[in-house]
């Protein structure tokens, strides 16, 4: 009877930005059309770019392997559409630089059947077989980090994992992709969890969902197979709860050590969309050639959740979704951590969880004041850093002190400090710049 009174669990600090999810949370995932030309970058993940295994002019089938992983920290790429390889050349990337990519021109009349590969059978596959299958399927963290999933799942020999955490938090405003995946792909998620439990040697899984998705919680709980050692647990709505460290603190009360990994506290955590892709692709030996994204924001007319081919040029996607004339900012991902675009010619990649367009109404610049030590940032920082002090040091260019005395490198750039700052100081933006400077200085002392 006290459950009504009990607050949902969470981590300390954090912020409560407006959710802005109502426009798209109720919209089922729809298939996005094929662009006239797809651009599949070879480096869509953290690690070494993939090596092309097709040549210019070659015909490819949708789902066919077109680039192989180059070493362990690298993943495969698959054709997003049946068509012909137009060229292999440099294409603009989100970093602002040019990066090699495979251009594919889809056949207009093709049925776009997806070709299958060698299935990975859950019952018979060994741990290494599953890891290899995940790498060959080109799977990376779909929450936005795009870190190769098989690398994350490779548990160090000296660590024991007791809990698999499936991250269904989706704390970024506007984004509703994980929400839809959890409503529409429950069987895939449960299959994915079985692979993940086996590969990490873990006995139990927890699916963590924020309290703004109680429909998901009910649906998942109802559909949960009796033989799957998994529970669905609700955490309070708070940003940045989707950050791995915050979610593990909220669900399990465990603190990942500074500079450490979840495996240091006996946990592996995987984004729920990533788990769903593992469950969807591995039984058929397929690879990732599309993903679910949210297209939203006040400057988009056809807001929604779409299954979009990897490599769709953003310009095509924006045309299809309808970008308002007074759009003033477009960014990939959510408004808290999403990257602003250097160019509209970049393609959608595996790490793109959505794109949001704002009009000038949302982006009016506010006047910057001096820091008044209000401590709003100190109370917001989920890692208990001192953004106020870091901001003063950043202004003074003291990046070494920022790192050595004030834990700059722990900052994962959630942006909560900038969000709350009443002086409108671009705190996290300066920390990003400071990290870049620090990396340069440490590389050439």
């Amino acid at each position, binding site marked *: 009877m006290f459950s009504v009174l009990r607050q949902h669990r969470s981590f300390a600090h954090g912020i409560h*930005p*407006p959710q802005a999810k109502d426009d798209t949370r109720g919209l089922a995932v729809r298939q996005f059309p094929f662009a006239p030309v797809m651009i599949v970058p070879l480096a869509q993940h953290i690690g070494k770019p993939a090596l092309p295994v097709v040549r210019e002019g070659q015909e490819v089938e949708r789902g066919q392997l077109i680039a192989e992983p180059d070493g362990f920290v690298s993943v495969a790429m698959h054709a997003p559409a049946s068509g012909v390889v137009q060229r292999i050349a440099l294409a603009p990337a989100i970093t602002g630089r040019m990066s090699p990519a495979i251009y594919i021109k889809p056949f207009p009349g093709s049925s776009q059947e997806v070709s299958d590969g060698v299935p990975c059978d859950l019952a018979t596959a060994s741990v290494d077989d599953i890891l290899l299958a995940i790498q060959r399927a080109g799977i990376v963290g779909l929450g936005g980090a795009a870190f190769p999933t098989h690398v994350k799942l490779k548990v160090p020999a000296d660590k024991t994992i007791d809990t698999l955490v499936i991250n269904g938090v989706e704390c970024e*405003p506007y984004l509703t992709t994980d929400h839809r995946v959890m409503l529409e792909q429950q069987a895939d998620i449960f299959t994915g969890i079985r692979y993940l439990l086996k590969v990490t040697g873990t006995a139990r899984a927890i699916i963590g969902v924020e309290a703004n998705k109680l429909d998901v919680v009910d649906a998942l709980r109802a559909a949960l197979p009796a033989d799957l050692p998994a529970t669905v647990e609700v955490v309070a709505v708070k940003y940045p709860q989707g950050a791995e*460290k915050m979610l593990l*603190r909220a669900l399990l009360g465990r603190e990942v*050590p*500074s*500079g*450490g990994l979840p495996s240091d506290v006996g946990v592996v955590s995987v984004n729920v969309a990533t788990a769903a892709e593992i469950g969807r692709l591995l039984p058929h030996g397929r690879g990732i050639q599309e993903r679910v994204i949210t297209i939203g924001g006040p400057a988009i007319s056809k807001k929604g959740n779409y299954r979009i081919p990897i490599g769709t040029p953003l*310009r095509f996607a924006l*045309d299809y979704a309808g*970008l308002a*004339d007074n759009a*003033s*900012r*477009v960014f990939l*991902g959510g*408004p*808290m*951590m*999403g*990257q*602003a675009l250097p160019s*509209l010619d970049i393609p959608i990649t595996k790490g793109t969880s959505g794109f949001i367009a*704002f009009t000038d109404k*949302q*982006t009016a610049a*506010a006047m910057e*004041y*001096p*820091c*008044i*030590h*209000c*401590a*709003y940032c*100190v109370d917001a*920082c*989920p*890692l*208990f*850093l*001192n953004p*106020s*002090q870091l901001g003063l040091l950043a202004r003074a260019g003291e990046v070494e002190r920022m790192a050595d005395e*004030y*834990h700059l490198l*722990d900052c994962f*750039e959630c*942006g909560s400090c*900038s*969000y*709350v*700052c*009443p*002086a*409108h100081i671009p705190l*996290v*933006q300066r920390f*990003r710049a400071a990290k870049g400077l620090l990396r340069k200085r440490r590389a050439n002392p």
Partner: protein
Amino acid sequence: MSNRGHTLELRSSPHIASGASVDVIMRNVVWALLPVAAYAIYAFGLAAAMTLLVAVISCVATEHLLCRLATTPSTVRDWSVTITGLLYGLTLPPALPLWMVACGGIMGVSMAKFLFGGLGYNAFNPALVGRAILQAAFPAAMTSWTPAFGVDRFSQVPGSTFTVPFAAPVYDGTTGATPLSLFKFDGQLTGTGDLLLGLTSGSAGETCALLILAGGIYLAVRKMLNWRIPAAILVTVAGLSWALHQLAPADYPPVGFMLFSGGLMLGAVFMATDMVASPITHAGCVAYGVLIGLLVTVIRLWGGMPEGVMYAILIANAASPHIDGLIQPRVFGTGRG
């Protein structure tokens, strides 16, 4: 899109903000101070009204002119100097000669705020520095008090108010004594009820503890004031004076008197909580509050002066950066402690 003529900004995240703003915070502090100021005028009449007016004008004008001199945009629109002016006026004896009021305002804002670099860089509360300068320069005028609720307070201005600069102010023979000086020099106690309601004499805005508390609660609820600072100050003063009163009831006043007399309430709620000059962590704020409480008790009970809130806060302002140096938040994932 280029072919449709969109101009897109390239900005680093986050792309949204909470909407909080320095000028909004400062304006709210002004709102919270207005009832206190209104009561000061109600209790002390025209003298208090003029004192407050001259205090605010001298502070705001000083900042505006100094910004002009420095050829930087005027910063008076952030409202912080309005708070300084109001607070400064509220700490003064109501019948203080107006030229002295103006002097203190000019000195406080120029020396304690502008010279340090303006808002955000002032190590000390400028209102208190202005008052401290006056206390040192004009000790007699700064301890000449007007009784509250004089019958002719709305029809007559005390002679001292319009004293010619550098002439000795003349008081009308109706000067009162504050509860603290009555206690210190005459061993006379004022009742807690009178103190709460502000029926005593004292600085213009320090007398009505209830209105000050109400303003503080409003700001604390809106998260524009760290309640830990006044709480730590008041608990420390209450704890110490309770223990001393238990030991020697004849020598030391009771808790209620210590809490609600003098400038403690105004200082604890509105002065010590100046965000710029107080520590940034919650633990640091508690340490800072305890330090102020300790100093107030020591100065009041064993010092030569009847009141010590101003010096206690200024000393703690000086200690604040060092408290921040000692007390930092425990970074996530670095062990408890």
